[in-house]
């Protein structure tokens, strides 16, 4: 009797081994490459005949729980939002409803942090090309190469504005935008302030700079002090004309409006990052008859400056201004680098569109870093 049992068991084992050989079910887990170690790729291969699948993941107590899935399971799944270097255990269950049968396979994996985001390759290339172009032109300018810059009318008028203020014996108002020092527009604005303050010092005209942030205040004071020094009039520098008002957007605007109507500056400069307050400032300035020059790269505020100011620096002109005014070789060289970038952009767009029309989608998907 015992023998028969043994025989049966051996037969069963044989049978299942044969089944195994025939069907080769597999369930593999691998790290998702080129990422922060947040995802695992689950792949499986099951023979036909299973009606539905279920995927479970072990929780911290090693108890398998059903996973919440957004999409139906076919042959693979990417589990994301994981922690790097943790080991995760999964169990795949396949059901055969007709036979009321099921099998399960377990596997485990560990997400790894990688050393490069592959989908950012186009991004890196573009950065390297633009960066080296800018460095190249800066170097060329340093060696004494002369570059041409076309006229920017908003900037030519600056002398005129300062001249007018001098004639009238009125101050100049300079507002460096409402962003913190971490906005490049603020820094671009401050370097224009440097040029402007130097000229104002030469003309002996007062310059008022209200600031919204203390760090901008610190930098603005350094810039203006340096400008007065360069102009050879350090004695004329008045620190109390560069001051802080308040961190609050509209509180700051209320304060500036007060300055505009009471001190009646003959020239107003609104250069930097501006938001909703742009029109309040520009319209108040307009009512006092000041010459107004504005400039911002915030495209949505440009219309309001355009309608209420005499000159408006549009977008990149704000960044070009300091190079234009100072004619500093290195800055002009870097501007040349931006221009190279513009030609590159135009080329990329034209080539891209031609390829799109020709049905070659790879160029665009490479550029946009798709497939990641």
């Amino acid at each position, binding site marked *: 009797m015992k023998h028969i049992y043994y025989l049966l068991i051996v037969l069963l084992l044989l049978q299942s081994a044969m089944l195994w050989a025939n069907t080769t079910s597999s369930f593999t887990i691998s790290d998702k490459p080129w990422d922060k170690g947040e995802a695992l790729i689950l792949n499986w291969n099951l023979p036909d005949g299973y009606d539905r699948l279920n995927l479970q993941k072990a929780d911290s107590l090693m108890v398998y729980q059903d996973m919440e899935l957004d999409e139906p399971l076919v042959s693979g799944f990417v589990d994301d939002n994981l922690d790097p270097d943790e080991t995760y255990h999964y169990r795949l269950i396949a059901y055969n409803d007709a036979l009321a049968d099921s099998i399960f396979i377990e596997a485990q994996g560990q997400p790894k942090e990688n050393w490069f985001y592959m989908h950012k390759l186009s991004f890196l290339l*573009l950065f390297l090309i633009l960066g080296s172009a800018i460095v190249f032109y800066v170097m060329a300018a340093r060696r004494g190469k002369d570059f*041409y810059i076309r006229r920017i009318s908003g900037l030519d008028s600056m002398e005129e504005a300062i001249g007018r203020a001098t004639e009238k014996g009125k101050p100049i108002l300079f507002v460096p935008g409402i962003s913190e020092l971490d906005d490049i527009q603020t820094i671009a604005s401050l370097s224009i302030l440097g040029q402007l303050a130097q000229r104002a010092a030469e003309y002996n005209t007062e310059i008022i700079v209200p600031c919204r942030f203390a760090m901008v205040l610190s930098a603005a004071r350094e810039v203006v002090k340096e400008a007065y020094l360069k102009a050879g009039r350090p004695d004329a520098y008045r620190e109390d004309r560069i001051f802080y008002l308040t961190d609050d957007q*509209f509180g700051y605007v209320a304060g500036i409006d007060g300055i505009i109507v009471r001190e009646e500056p003959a020239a107003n400069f609104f250069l930097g990052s501006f938001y909703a307050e742009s029109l309040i400032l520009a319209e108040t300035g307009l009512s006092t008859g000041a010459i107004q020059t504005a400039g911002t790269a915030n495209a*949505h505020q440009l*219309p309001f400056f355009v*309608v209420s100011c005499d000159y408006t620096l549009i977008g990149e002109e704000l960044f070009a201004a300091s190079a234009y005014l100072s004619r500093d070789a290195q800055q002009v060289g870097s501007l040349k680098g931006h221009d190279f970038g513009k030609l590159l952009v135009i080329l990329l*767009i034209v080539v891209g569109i031609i390829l799109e*029309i020709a049905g070659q989608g790879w*160029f665009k998907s490479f550029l*946009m870093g798709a497939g990641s």
Partner: protein
Amino acid sequence: MPDLMNTIGIWLAAFFTFCIFSFLYRDNPFYKLAEQIFVGLSAGYGLIYVVYSTMVPNLFAKLSQDFSGNLILLIPFALGLMMLTRIYPKTQWISRYPISIVIGTSAAISVMRSLKTDLLLQVGATIINPFQGSTASEISGNLLVIIGTLCGVYFFYFSKKQEGLAKIPSKIGVYFLMVSFGATFGYTVMARISLLIGRLEFLRKDWLHIIN
């Protein structure tokens, strides 16, 4: 009592609303009063807010609860204290260290962000097959987007005198800019009127209790 105080609060709010509106006529003592109160209050508000929302939870609370685990926070703490050296002219130069770190990192962050969202993604969004649209207006629109973007970028090209043939694309770029400025202006009118409606509704309902 809270009810009475609330009523007083509404009257205060109404008073300051009129103070600001009075500026539209001309500068006057009421505006001057409101302006200085506004500047003072908001500076005080900002200071208190930063202390409660940033300095305490992000720095002091972390350091006092788990000092050794948050040693890294001593760096911003020190840099912050270095900013305060600006108070004395002799030590002002020390504040250049935190300023340069702040500017160095934020310059790099801005470079990366601009390159990605403003340059790469916008260029990618312009790379379209213009003829894929289903209607004439869609196709013409696609073509306008392409022409406008290319000419607009060319408008900002500084290294060449814009005369003769080179002037044409740049001129077209300017036309696009003007249409866009006009359209943005028009589009914003509604949002701005809404702000005024909000204020007038406050005066009508909360202050005067005029119900229609």
